[in-house]
């Protein structure tokens, strides 16, 4: 198989050479012994069935995981794998475009470019440079992409996000090898073609690619070499000219389902169908499923196969959700139990023992007040625990002390203990060793022979042998049905890999006008202020405005502070008390002795970054640290000054609270602070800080320090909270340790009303200010309408709920 081109390659030093890579996820060998060489200018297609080890190899090459054995050479120089990380990989010029996106959804397109490539936008006017970089990269790969680089990433479709992710990787000037893991899975046909053109063009210029795809026709178009993996090993390697789609499919299908496991487990004859248990689908259709038709009865084992993400999981979930309900297109008789495939994400309860984990489904049946005695528990656990030979220190041991395979046994026992009629299995043997697998297969058969219906989604093609009935799915459709011993792996492969013509959706669907997050708060503020003004026109005069500003200034500042914290997906439960403490310090120490007062203020301010550091380093919940701190703040304030009193230093008043010919200085300061807060968030590092609120891991992988980010955010929040206290002192010309306590919760509410979310780093300083003003103005409004002050709080609460409910409606429309 040596061609002329390859002979030439043998003389060259490979760009990347991996020798004898091995990675074991006990007990599964994900990558067994892989040696692979990639030469400059190659487009190497990495092909293999589900679970062949492609992703593991990718992760090992890019430093996301460390492999157990193996050597890596870059241009002939050995790389120290013990200290190999995504960051060192990037320095060597290796980059990956993962299937899961690593973008920050709360940033704009060009900001996402910036946080990952800050070195390319040095000097003044980084925004312009980043915009240009983003635009150029997108234009280069996807001409006429229709993506606005100023748009927020959350406003792009999945396809567009994928385009951004790919384009972002291409603009790394140091990049020499790019690994693309299923890059076209969500791209429309036009962009897929553009990407292929780009890859081929740049490969000619010397760029190197590893291209992973299930779409064999794509591979035939662009790759010059093919590497086929099977069970963590090399199955075949060669030039594209030596292979064809049929050849690849045949190679992948070879050797699986050799019947080894089946012979070990013996033959199985399904019992007579149990007509009391069934799932019947007749043209069932959802967003992900199209016209599903099949019938299965108790006693059968129905396998769902096909390439991952083609509707098998959706079908399984639909059956679980719709059990016991009357819906058209699907009839289900019998109780269901679900065995989750992703153990960690949706399976185990990590705080619990094996026993508790095993009985939860059974325990969840019946009335909520049902008593579950010790005897009940032992009885429920015992039989299956023994039968499954779970290796542990006893059923009382924590589930997390078990190996993956044994955890999976517990989850299957969960379904069996519950004695459900229909058992839904979501790839239950993933990461399980062969003896355990065989034991599980026995169990499924036993369950079926007892008249239960087993529906089994599997990614291990050898397991199809155990199914009495088989549905092959492709793009949400059932494209093949097999029954009994008619399983034909070649046929299944070709059915799964057949991609129908791609729908040519234009890249910029779903681009309707998006309301800014702060809109509701802004409208609420204007409406409330307007209504107040109709009652009392005085409010439109400068005097009226000043009066109002005096009322909401401190809350506005606290809300600005809280915005930074909630922007990091934390909550500060001490901001009000901190404001009170600063108020007291200003009116006592600072009044008596400016130097001592200033030192005291700096000391308490230093506590904020310290909190950020502790939260980061010890991984403790921010909500408790700030709650504890709130007691400390109010305690210190009370110790210094037990009764309201004190005097604000005259110089503070002259700065923050002096009348000018136009407006009080306080009004100007508030505007200045708001603008400063917004500018900070829009600055280079502010953009990075926002990124941390949304996708911490992506930011760390881009090389940013988490501790530094946390400390910066807490310091910023501290400064604004401190200014809130200073403003309070200037306004009141006195201090009261507890007068600001209510600002804590009100500031949280302001941020949320102003379009903020508790997670995801979505906040708006302007919105928070509008929210704070609205909340304060409600009491003014009610006063003007002579509504008893009794109702003030309640109407504040109602407005809060109303605004958040409206936001939910808006969100629903977006997802619909």
């Amino acid at each position, binding site marked *: 198989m040596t061609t002329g081109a390859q002979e030439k390659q043998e003389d060259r030093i490979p760009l990347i050479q991996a020798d004898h890579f091995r990675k074991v996820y006990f007990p599964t060998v994900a990558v067994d012994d892989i040696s692979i060489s990639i030469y400059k200018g190659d487009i190497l297609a990495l092909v293999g069935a589900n679970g062949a080890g492609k992703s593991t190899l990718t992760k090992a090459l890019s430093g996301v995981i460390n492999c157990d054995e193996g050597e890596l050479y870059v241009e002939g120089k050995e790389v120290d794998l013990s200290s190999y990380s995504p960051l060192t990989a990037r320095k060597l010029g290796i980059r990956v475009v993962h299937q899961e996106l690593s973008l920050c959804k709360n940033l704009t397109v060009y900001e996402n470019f910036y946080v990952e490539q800050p070195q390319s936008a040095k000097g003044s006017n980084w925004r312009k440079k980043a915009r240009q970089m983003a635009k150029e990269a997108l234009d280069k790969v996807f001409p006429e992409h229709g993506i606005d680089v100023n748009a927020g990433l959350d406003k792009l479709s999945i396809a567009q996000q994928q385009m951004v992710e790919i384009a972002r990787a291409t603009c790394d000037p140091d990049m020499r090898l790019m690994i693309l893991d299923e890059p076209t899975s969500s791209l429309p046909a036009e962009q897929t073609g553009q990407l292929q053109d780009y890859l081929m063009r740049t490969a000619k210029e010397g760029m190197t690619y590893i291209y992973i795809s299930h779409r064999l026709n794509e591979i035939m178009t662009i790759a010059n070499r093919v590497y086929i993996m099977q069970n963590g090993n090399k199955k075949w390697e060669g030039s594209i000219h030596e292979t064809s789609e049929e050849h690849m499919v045949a190679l992948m299908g070879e050797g699986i389902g050799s019947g080894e496991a089946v012979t070990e487990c013996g033959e199985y004859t399904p019992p007579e169908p149990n007509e009391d248990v069934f799932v019947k689908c007749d043209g069932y259709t959802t967003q992900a499923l199209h016209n599903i038709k099949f019938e299965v009865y108790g006693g059968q084992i129905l396998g769902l196969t096909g390439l991952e993400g083609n509707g098998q999981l959706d079908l399984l979930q639909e059956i679980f959700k719709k059990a016991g309900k009357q819906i058209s297109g699907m009839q289900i008789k019998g109780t269901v139990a679900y065995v989750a495939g992703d153990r960690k994400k949706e399976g185990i309860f990590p*705080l619990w023992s094996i026993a508790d984990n095993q009985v939860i489904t059974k325990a969840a049946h019946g009335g909520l007040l049902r008593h579950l005695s*010790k005897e009940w528990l032992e009885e429920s656990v015992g039989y299956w625990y023994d039968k499954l030979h779970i290796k542990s220190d006893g059923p009382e041991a924590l589930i997390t002390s078990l190996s993956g395979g044994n955890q999976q046994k517990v989850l299957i026992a969960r379904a069996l203990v519950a004695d459900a009629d229909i058992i839904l299995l979501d790839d239950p043997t993933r990461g399980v060793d062969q003896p355990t697998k065989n034991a599980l297969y026995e169990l499924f058969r036993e369950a079926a022979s007892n008249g239960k219906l087993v529906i089994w989604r599997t990614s291990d093609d050898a397991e199809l042998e155990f199914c009495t009935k088989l549905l092959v799915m492709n793009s949400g459709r059932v494209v093949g049905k097999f029954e009994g011993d008619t399983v034909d792996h070649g046929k299944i492969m070709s059915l799964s890999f057949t991609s129908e013509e791609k729908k040519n959706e234009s890249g910029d669907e779903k681009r309707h006008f998006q309301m800014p997050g702060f809109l509701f708060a802004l409208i609420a503020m204007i409406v409330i202020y307007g209504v107040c003004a109709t009652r009392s026109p005085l409010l439109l005069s400068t005097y009226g405005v000043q009066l109002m500003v005096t009322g909401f200034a401190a809350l506005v500042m606290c809300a600005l502070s809280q915005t930074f914290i909630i922007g990091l997906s934390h909550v500060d439960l001490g901001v009000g008390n901190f404001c009170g403490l600063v108020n007291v310090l200003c009116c006592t120490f600072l009044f008596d002795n400016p130097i001592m007062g200033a030192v005291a203020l700096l000391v308490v301010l230093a506590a904020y970054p310290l909190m950020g550091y502790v939260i980061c380093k010890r991984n403790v919940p921010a909500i408790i640290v700030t709650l504890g701190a709130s007691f400390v703040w*109010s305690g210190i304030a009370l110790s210094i000054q037990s009764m309201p009193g004190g005097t604000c230093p005259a110089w503070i008043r002259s700065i923050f609270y002096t009348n000018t010919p136009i407006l009080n200085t306080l009004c100007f300061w508030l505007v200045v602070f708001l603008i400063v807060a917004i500018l900070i968030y829009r600055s280079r590092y502010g953009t990075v800080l926002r990124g941390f609120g949304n996708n911490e891991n992506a930011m760390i992988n881009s090389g940013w320090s988490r501790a530094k980010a946390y400390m910066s955010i807490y310091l910023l929040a501290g400064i604004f909270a401190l200014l809130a206290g200073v403003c309070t002192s200037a306004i009141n010309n006195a201090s009261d340790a507890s007068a600001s306590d209510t600002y804590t919760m009100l500031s949280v509410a302001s941020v949320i009303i102003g379009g903020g979310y508790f997670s995801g780093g979505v906040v708006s300083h302007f919105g928070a200010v509008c929210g704070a003003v609205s909340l304060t103005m409600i009491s003014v409004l009610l006063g003007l309408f002579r509504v008893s002050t*009794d109702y003030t709080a309640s109407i504040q*609460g109602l407005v809060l709920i109303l605004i958040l409910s409206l936001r939910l409606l808006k969100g629903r429309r977006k997802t619909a």
Partner: protein
Amino acid sequence: MKNPKLKAFVGRNGSWLFAGIGCIVLWILMGLFGSGISLRSLIDNAYTASFLAIAGLAQMLVVTTGRGAIDLSIPGMITLGAYTCMGICNGQNSMIVPALLVVLLEGVIVGTLNSAMVIWLKIPAIIATMAMNYMIVTVTMLVNNQFNVFTIPPILKNIATFRIATVPVMVVLVILLAALIHFMLTSTTYGKSLLSMGQNQEAARLAGVKIIKTEMITYITAAVLAGIAGALISARVTGAYLGMGDNYQMESIACIVVGGTLMSGGRANAAGTLVGSLFLYLIISCMQLMGADAGMQSVVKGALIIIVLLIGASDNNSRREKKYRKTVNKTA
């Protein structure tokens, strides 16, 4: 520790066992500063703490539902419970039962609304309950205008203040309540459902747990408990006044943190909540004896909450779990 069971027990209860030891140390300190070590001083503190403990148990249930849920309507419900009870009873024993029934009804309404906002309007619990708290305050003020709230029916007063051989009835009642909640959590369908959904709501759903029902019952129970706590507090302080529940806002959270309940949900500890509330009051008493003012007491309390949290975070158990949660969040 050779005994694996003991090890597991300590692992699970580390933070509140520490607080329990802290309680004993504080008690001894109190004896040294005061009039010698006596059981009496401990019981007196337990008595004061028992009112907080009820609010703490309520908070514990809501926090255990997970995803950062906190019930901020507890202080409002305490005040409302106090007003309702005092107002309806008007000093008559015969009206206690109807009054408590009304408190119960209020709790059911508040809890239902809270959970409806969380489940269907998808408002974060912390905001939904805060808004609810505002509304309860209004209702309370309306009640305030209607009734006489300063005469206490004798029986209620007895329950709140009576002692059997120096042991206050309240302490016994609260221990019984904690025992009942412990039983509910460990040995009923409700408890298993609540603890599972707090650990991982998606896993609980797939395991067939009735999530909506469980969540509603939890919010309702919390509101009812807070209302009853209010009725008892008012009997102790002879009357209802506005803002009487406000102190319980942060303290109810503090006492469950000290008590080993996980703020992220999925692990509750009824006994720990009792210890936690006792711990908080012992600090105050101890500081009082040492001559510290209210401010210093608060500082020490805050510092200790953070220290307990940091100690809790250092045990391996929770570290492993945090790692786990991180992966969950990442993939979610």
